[in-house]
């Protein structure tokens, strides 16, 4: 086919193709907008919710049930979906007082003396590859580029907590039984999380935005509608919000290092 023949053929194709009777375009914009809007969840316990609850009980570090905090609440700090209460000081009790030795509280990033977290990770549902997680959640998963040798997370979990929550876990390769760091992505509509009176609350900034640095141990209260649980958290947590996502970074590192990690989040290279 020479150039002229091809040109004529192309014109004919375009002319014929214009006559194709496509189905009416559905309201895709409406469907997409609905799916982007946070979903209001019913207040009763459904099977899905109960499942989510079970997962969260494990996720939040196999912490031990402690009596509910009854301190009079006078103010709170809110970052994203995380609310940190400052109440009337109550005499802090030793973190492990009254607990059997086999029930030592753990964070998702335990200190060097804590129990290994790996068995807990093994029991967590929703593990998948990073690529699968990217396709599952409705928000971009970003990875820290600091420290430079950190690499990709070793374990990735996506769980339904009222919204798909992603958890990335880095293992200490020098001590494979120990978790180095965990990063949680909490979208709007996830379970509300209260931190009640951490030992230390410090305001800081991540990318120029307000962030909170807390140091445990402190009670952590999770609630959704009528359900409420209180757990004991031990560890350092940096909380900040970008867009609709609340980020929660647990690490044994210093505040300065945690902020560097938080500010180094980058989209995953395709």
């Amino acid at each position, binding site marked *: *086919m020479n150039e002229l023949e*091809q040109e*004529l*053929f*192309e014109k*004919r*194709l*375009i002319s*014929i*193709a*214009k*006559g*194709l*009777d*496509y*189905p009416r*375009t*559905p309201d*895709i*914009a409406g*469907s*997409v*907008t609905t*799916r*982007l*809007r946070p979903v209001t969840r019913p207040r009763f316990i459904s099977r899905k919710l109960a499942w989510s609850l079970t997962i969260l009980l494990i996720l939040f570090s196999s912490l031990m049930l402690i009596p509910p905090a009854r301190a009079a609440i006078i103010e709170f700090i809110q970052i994203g979906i995380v609310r940190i209460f400052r109440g009337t000081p109550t005499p802090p009790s030793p973190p492990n007082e009254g607990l059997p030795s086999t029930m030592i509280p753990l964070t998702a990033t335990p200190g060097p003396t804590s129990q290994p977290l790996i068995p807990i990770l093994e029991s967590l549902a929703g593990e998948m590859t990073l690529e699968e997680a*990217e396709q599952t*959640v*409705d*928000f*971009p998963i970003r990875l820290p580029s600091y420290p430079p040798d950190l690499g990709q997370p070793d374990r990735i979990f996506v769980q339904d907590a009222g919204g798909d929550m992603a958890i990335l876990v880095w293992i200490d390769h020098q001590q494979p039984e120990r978790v180095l760091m965990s990063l949680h992505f909490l979208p709007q509509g996830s379970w509300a999380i209260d931190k009640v009176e951490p030992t230390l609350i410090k305001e800081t900034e991540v990318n120029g935005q307000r962030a909170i640095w807390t140091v445990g141990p402190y009670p952590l209260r999770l609630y959704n509608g009528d359900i409420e649980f209180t757990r004991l958290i031990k560890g350092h947590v940096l909380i900040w919000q*970008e*867009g*609709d996502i609340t980020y929660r970074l647990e690490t044994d590192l210093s505040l300065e290092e945690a902020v560097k990690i938080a500010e180094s989040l980058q*989209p995953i290279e*395709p």
Partner: protein
Amino acid sequence: MNFDLSGEARLDESTLIRHAASGDAAAWEPLVLAHQEAVFRLAYLILGDPDDAADVAQEAFLRAWNHIKRFDTTRPLRPWLLSIVTNLARNRFRSAGRYLATLTRAFRNDSAPVNIEEKSAQHLEARELWKAVQSLSVPDQQIVYLRYFLDLSVNETAQVLQVAEGTVKSRLSRALERLRGIIREEFPVLSEGHDA
């Protein structure tokens, strides 16, 4: 915030994309409205079923929203969206579920009466051309749909397929040769007045 792509208050696409990239879902809606027809039609051409096409189109916009922060706002959005829908539709085409759906649809179509009188000659001719294109390989189909059915320029087609313009031209040339052969042998009605 409300956004409107029509009238004097029209916001340019890159502004809306920047708002969307900062997490503003309200900015995404007018962009979906502006491009949903092209996205849906391409999915329909590849999959041949309006329900499948609607699912894939919706998924493409959600996928694009999730990755909008990576998008270069100096580039037009449409080629990127069409690139996403091409990949999604192709993957769906390969799935077992899709295969079963095609069988179901084929059965449904065979049993349904066809009222030829309701179809204009132009529509029937276009349907015949679509059938002829479906005889081509998947890459050939994609390039023909983009260039001749959606009427994209060579430059836009290159952006969708993420290849150089020269590559688009050479691939088009080869696809047209093959399509012409198929038309000559199996769809002579389309050759009338052209292949004398």
